[in-house]
């Protein structure tokens, strides 16, 4: 060993400890003045190590600062987003509320006009007038349905759905819903094949379950391309299962998750009327009932919506 210092190991360890603590007493002058060439190499190596380490540490500090900035920006964006959602929900609640009274007035007057005119012998309306009134009534019903959807959204976002469960026969509910669509099915020449061999009893909120089935059948009719719709009601294990199957436009795979979100619709549904809330509401009802709605679909082959409710 050619160390000029009496204890080179101690000296190296001392410098290493310094470097570990984030400082270094080795300077270029000390390196140059070092008489022992091996020690000079070691000191130079240590100096380079120290400089590398402090450079890395500076980089880390900088990137930490950058990360903090990004995180703050993200928090700000999230806050903005939450405020926007809050404003939207508040607007929905207020709008839905304000719309209810004029719609109530409209509903009453239209109902009354139709009843009075169709009963009165002397003031018998012309066929056209009655047809117009019936159209008017349908528009009022559409408005009502939209407002009720908006109200449901504000209900859900304001603290969840409150369900009123009772003993319900799911098959009877589905039959009722299909029956309610009779006229529309006839007009569009669409057949519904109902496969429900047994009553399926459970404890659910009847009105809300009706709403789920109504939504799914209405979608099947809307996007079913006029082809037959198949509905089945059965039990599977500890679950009641309603399947609504259409042979229509279908939903692309990458959009199947998204269609259950609020204010969203599949691209294949772009040109159809509606707020894009129905499936979201239906899914919220299913979840609040302890169940769920699943979808399987292929574009141009149709969609299958499966509602599972606990028995």
């Amino acid at each position, binding site marked *: 060993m050619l160390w000029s210092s009496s204890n080179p190991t101690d000296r190296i360890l001392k410098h290493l400890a310094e470097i570990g603590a984030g400082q270094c007493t080795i300077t270029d002058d000390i390196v140059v003045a070092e008489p022992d060439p091996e020690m000079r190499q070691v000191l130079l190596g240590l100096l380079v190590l120290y400089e590398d380490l402090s450079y890395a540490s500076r980089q880390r500090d900088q990137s930490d600062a950058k990360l903090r900035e990004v995180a703050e920006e993200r928090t700000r964006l999230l806050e903005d987003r939450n405020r926007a959602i809050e404003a939207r929900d508040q607007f929905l*609640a207020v709008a839905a*509320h*304000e719309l*209810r*009274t*004029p*719609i*109530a*007035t*409209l*509903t*009453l*007057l239209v*109902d*009354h006009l139709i*009843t*009075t005119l169709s009963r009165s012998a002397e003031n018998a309306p012309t066929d056209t007038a009655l047809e117009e009134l019936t159209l008017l009534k349908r528009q009022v019903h559409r408005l*009502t349905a939209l*407002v009720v959807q908006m*109200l449901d959204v*504000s*209900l859900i976002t*304001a*603290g969840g759905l*409150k369900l009123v469960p009772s003993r319900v026969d799911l098959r009877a509910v589905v039959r009722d819903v299909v029956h309610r669509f009779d006229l529309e099915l006839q007009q569009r020449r669409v057949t519904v094949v109902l496969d429900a061999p047994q009553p399926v009893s459970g404890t659910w909120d009847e009105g809300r379950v009706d709403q789920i089935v109504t939504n799914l059948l209405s979608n099947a009719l809307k996007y079913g391309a006029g082809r037959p719709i198949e509905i089945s009601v059965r039990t599977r294990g500890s679950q009641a299962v309603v399947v609504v199957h259409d042979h229509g436009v279908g939903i692309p795979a990458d959009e199947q998750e998204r269609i259950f979100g609020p204010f969203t619709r599949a691209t294949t549904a772009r040109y159809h009327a509606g707020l894009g809330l129905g499936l979201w509401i239906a899914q919220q009802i299913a979840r609040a009932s302890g169940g769920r709605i699943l979808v399987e679909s292929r574009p141009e082959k149709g969609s299958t919506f499966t509602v599972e409710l606990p028995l």
Partner: protein
Amino acid sequence: MTVPTRRPLMIIDDDDDLRKALTLIMSTYGYEVAAFGDARGALGALESGSAPFLILLDLMMAGMSGWEFRAAQLRNPKLSGIPVVVLTAANTLTDGVHTLSDVEIIPKPFALDSLLAVVERHARAAG
């Protein structure tokens, strides 16, 4: 249809159009209607002797609200027995509608048939 009671139907709603529509329609069904756009006026009429067989009550009204009206009605033993049906655009679960005791609630909008059925049931009971 003949109305089974000669007592009036009281309507309290501060929406002019809805109140007018309800009054017109209920009158054609033979009901005598006492309509009020403010709850305080309605309460005054009740206190001075009007005895309707049913009160159709709106909740969210300027001045005296439907809740305040109901509370005042219940405080007066002469009036507390008059049945009340609430017609409301309020959110029945979140706007405190459930805090009202012993009233039927019909959320707006409602079909004429369902309103008529409720009114007729009360008219028969008052017979």
